[in-house]
């Protein structure tokens, strides 16, 4: 059953999807950026600096979502030992680290004109830095431990532990008094962000998700090639 990635069919499909995303990505990126940077209105209070939000918020969402994926898949992998899940989580991790760092850096740049400081050790920001550390440790384990079974075991436990951090990040702004403002977009109830600004935000989010899919598939492909190479050497 798990032989399917030795099948070149999967390879051809990945190749096709990568080409498709490549063909539409830049058009979508430019239109989303022009909505975010030009057509959307400035904020009544913050003026034009609100535009950093269109990168900051999607980056933070993707950082959190990637780690949730890695955590859940790692738990399944730890219990059921499915080789394919290892490749998937290994391919998501660098993306998640990049977007988490992007969220921290853009947040810092946004903090200077609005709050008056680049950095504050409040609960939201600190927990976000801890998330970046978890990503870093996860990637480092896979890079440094050459024994693959051991690496999977340790990295899965780290990912499962990091999963505890996710609700802490999400609710940090409600549980404790922080400098960071509470969430504007709520799953239940009305959002406190005007629709003319929500639309470019969701557009940017979908473009960045598409970017994630692109990089993920490329990385996934490389990992499969690496496994194939290893097996050939053994033969």
């Amino acid at each position, binding site marked *: 059953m798990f032989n399917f990635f030795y099948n070149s069919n999967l390879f051809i499909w990945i190749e096709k999807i990568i080409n498709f995303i490549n063909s539409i990505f830049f058009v979508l990126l430019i239109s989303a950026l022009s909505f975010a940077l030009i057509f959307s209105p400035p904020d*009544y209070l*913050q003026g034009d600096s*609100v535009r950093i939000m269109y990168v900051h918020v999607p980056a933070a969402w993707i950082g959190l979502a990637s780690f949730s994926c890695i955590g859940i898949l790692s738990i399944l992998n730890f219990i059921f030992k499915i080789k394919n899940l290892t490749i998937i989580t290994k391919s998501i991790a660098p993306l998640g680290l990049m977007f988490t760092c992007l969220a921290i850096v853009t947040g810092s740049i946004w903090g200077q004109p609005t709050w*008056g400081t680049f950095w*504050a050790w409040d609960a939201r920001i600190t927990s976000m830095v801890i998330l970046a550390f978890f990503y870093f440790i996860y990637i480092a384990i896979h890079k440094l431990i050459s024994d693959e079974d051991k690496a999977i075991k340790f990295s899965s436990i780290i990912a499962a532990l990091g999963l*505890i951090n996710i609700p802490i990040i999400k609710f940090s702004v409600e549980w404790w008094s922080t400098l960071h403002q509470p969430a504007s977009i709520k799953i239940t109830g009305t959002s406190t*962000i005007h629709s003319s*600004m929500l639309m470019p935000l969701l557009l940017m989010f979908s473009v960045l998700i598409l970017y994630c899919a692109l990089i993920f598939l490329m990385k996934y492909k490389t990992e499969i090639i690496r496994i194939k190479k290893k097996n050939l050497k053994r033969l």
Partner: protein
Amino acid sequence: MLPKKVKKRASLLAITLLVSAIGIFFILQSLNKNILYFKSPTDIKNNQNINFDKKIRVGGMVKKNSLIIKEEEIKFIITDFNNELNISFSGTVPNLFSEEKGVVAEGKLQDKTFFIADRILAKHDENYMPPELKDMMKKNAK
């Protein structure tokens, strides 16, 4: 049914997660006061043993009509709608600092009602809207 090894691994992971989640819960519980980025005026009023030499952060809303800007000095009152605290500050304030907006002040308490700040941070809320809409809302409110 699942093989015995799978069950063993699952229970091992579940126990590890449960124990560490409870551990983190208790750590956060005991750190609770330190995690708070700022204290509210009510916290300061209720706190019996305040260290007046230590730098602290206080936060709340700038009270309406309380902002007095003199040369070299800005005075205002922050409120959490129960208690109030007088703040004095000299220096530059962030752009978003204004009346009826959130603010965090860093500095030292002189007594329980007077605070000298050496840094002011603006705290903004979760509302985002275009300026035209805000004007419309103001007109409707009148």
